[in-house]
């Protein structure tokens, strides 16, 4: 009797795309268990899944936004805590390095690259604090808490106002959600400390002419009105150049006094892609075909923030939020199954046009466009849908 060879599949990255890929691949292979056995390995530099889209939470409170990978996959998945340094696709082998600096190589049959993105940071001389990591989020929380405590003792009204003013620079989804959450929690603390909560000023600096340029103008306006109701003032067409010793300098030459400047400048493809040995676009995204296969690398696929995925029907580049990553991962499971069986693979299809915003605790807004309608959910239901997308992307549903 000839033994049927098992397959080794490695997923690199325990972010939204990575964990959903693991789930989809396991599901696919469960159905094929009698045909081939699967060794599934998940590699990440951390032992946990980091819920990056919730970074604003530790900037205001104690919420833990990490989930141990072993909790997500108690069995059937091997974890390797290491940083991948090279993919040698010719040999179907990857090289990695663990936290102690030990180098290893692992052979694979299939490899899924889902290393995601990193938060864009300002130049160090631009001052302020970028909401780029857990550590940074904690430091932001410490900073505004220290400011507000100082404001209690401060005699000068002008200085007190400065301490109670925060600039959030960058009005993408992250900037919107961060500013709304900051406004809510700082006001709460202000009340506890006996300060006037209406003196808390959150200024959201938007380089564009309106919020949410990806959707209709009216949705942007509605968002702005909701933020205003939360205590956030949006400043359009404003570019912040620098924050230095409590003074914010804008591109139009104006200056403004602030207690804290938080940068939320969006995402960049993971810089490790530059040296990993796979083809990338000039912007730094992995080049893949309509079935997520990496150009010129046998058995290697890439999904999520790190890949440039284009809908072959419309020619549109897929969005880079956790919703798209989840849908891509589910399709990847079917693609792998089809590739193993030698069947035609399902091509990428763009995700439904659908955006969610959290606007402080239990408040949110969801926009989608269907049947010629701009459909908007607001209030608690908007927030519940927002939470649902976060939880399902992190496999908590």
């Amino acid at each position, binding site marked *: 009797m000839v033994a049927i060879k098992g397959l080794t599949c490695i997923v690199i990255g325990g972010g939204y795309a990575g964990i959903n890929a693991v789930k989809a691949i396991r599901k696919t292979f469960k159905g094929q268990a009698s045909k081939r056995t699967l060794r599934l390995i998940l590699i990440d530099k951390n032992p946990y899944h980091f819920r990056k889209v919730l970074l604003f939470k530790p900037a205001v409170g104690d919420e833990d936004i990490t989930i141990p990978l072993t909790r997500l996959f108690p069995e059937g998945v091997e974890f390797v805590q290491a940083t991948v340094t090279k993919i040698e696709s010719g040999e179907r082998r990857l090289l990695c390095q663990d936290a102690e600096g030990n180098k290893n190589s692992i052979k694979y049959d299939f490899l899924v690259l889902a290393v995601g993105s990193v938060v864009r940071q300002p130049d160090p001389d631009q001052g302020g604090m970028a909401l780029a990591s857990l550590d940074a989020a904690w430091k932001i929380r410490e900073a505004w808490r220290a400011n507000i405590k100082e404001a209690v003792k401060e005699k000068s009204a002008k200085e007190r106002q400065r301490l109670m003013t925060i600039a959030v620079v960058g009005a993408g989804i992250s900037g919107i959600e961060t500013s709304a959450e900051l406004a809510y929690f700082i006001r709460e603390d202000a009340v506890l400390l006996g300060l006037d909560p209406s003196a808390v000023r959150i200024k959201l600096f938007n380089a564009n002419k309106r919020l949410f340029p990806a959707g*209709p103008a009216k949705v942007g306006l509605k968002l702005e009105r909701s933020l205003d109701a939360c205590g956030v003032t949006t400043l359009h067409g404003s570019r912040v150049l620098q924050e230095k010793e409590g003074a914010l300098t804008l591109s139009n030459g104006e200056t403004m006094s602030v207690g804290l400047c938080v940068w939320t400048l969006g995402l960049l493809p993971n810089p490790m892609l530059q040296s990993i040995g796979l083809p990338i676009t000039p912007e730094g995204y992995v080049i893949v075909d309509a079935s997520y296969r990496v150009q010129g690398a046998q058995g290697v696929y890439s999904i999520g923030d790190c890949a440039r995925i284009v809908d072959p029907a419309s020619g549109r580049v897929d969005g880079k939020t956790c919703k798209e990553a989840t849908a891509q991962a589910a399709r990847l499971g079917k693609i792998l199954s089809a590739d193993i069986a030698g069947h035609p693979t399902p091509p990428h299809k763009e995700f439904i046009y659908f955006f969610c915003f959290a606007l402080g605790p239990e408040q949110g807004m969801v926009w989608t466009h269907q049947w010629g*309608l701009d459909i*908007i*959910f607001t209030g*608690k*239901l*908007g927030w519940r849908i927002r939470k649902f997308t976060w939880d399902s992307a992190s496999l908590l549903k």
Partner: protein
Amino acid sequence: MEKDGILKLERLVEPKAYLCKMVTNRCRDLFNSARKRREQYFGQWLPEPLLTPNDESFESVVQGELLSYAMLVLLERLSLTERAVFVLREALGFEYADIAELVGKSEANCRKLISRARGKMGITPDEPVNPEAASEEWVRRLLAALEQGNVDMVVSMLAKDVVLVSDGGGKAFAAVHPIESRDLVARFLLGLIRKTPHYEGGVHVEMRDINGQTGLVVRSGEGIVTVALMHVERNSIRNLYFVRNPDKLRHLLK
């Protein structure tokens, strides 16, 4: 009413329960009276064109700003919960279990709500939800056929089971009942065109972007007299909506 209740409180064994019950009943009364107003509406009821709801509450699934009129007409038939469940299922493709969690109802209840919503909207279980607005070219062709009095052409542009709904609200002349069938609708439309010379100062018809689609605004010396919108299905007009109630057109004059 609340005062009466408070006066009685001293004599009550369970004042809290009494107050709760009283407020609940009061809310029910209010709700019922609003419904009654709608039921007592004269003739057919249609939503206002260019409706821009600003209600931000949770219960109100905001319908959007750039509304397809045909879809709005259909959605207006639904209760707020039915609308929320319908949109979550049909627009966002959520699973019933997830919808149940989001709206705080049981899965079975959500399935029933969807089925009821589809029924109210006249969409069969297997039929996709897809009301299509008439394009500018369509509207132009229909206008040309009407102006030329080309009966055959008008008839050929209408679906076999076309329905024309006209809302005068008891304040403007309008067909009280929906006009159904291709021949009757064609005759009605051609009749309207023939009547235009009777308007003082004549009638001016212009194409405008209404609710995110091409609609017709009919003006006479008195101002806007009708807003007409239509939806097309399989290359012919399935529904025609005539809003003639002056209360619903006033905001368009601004």
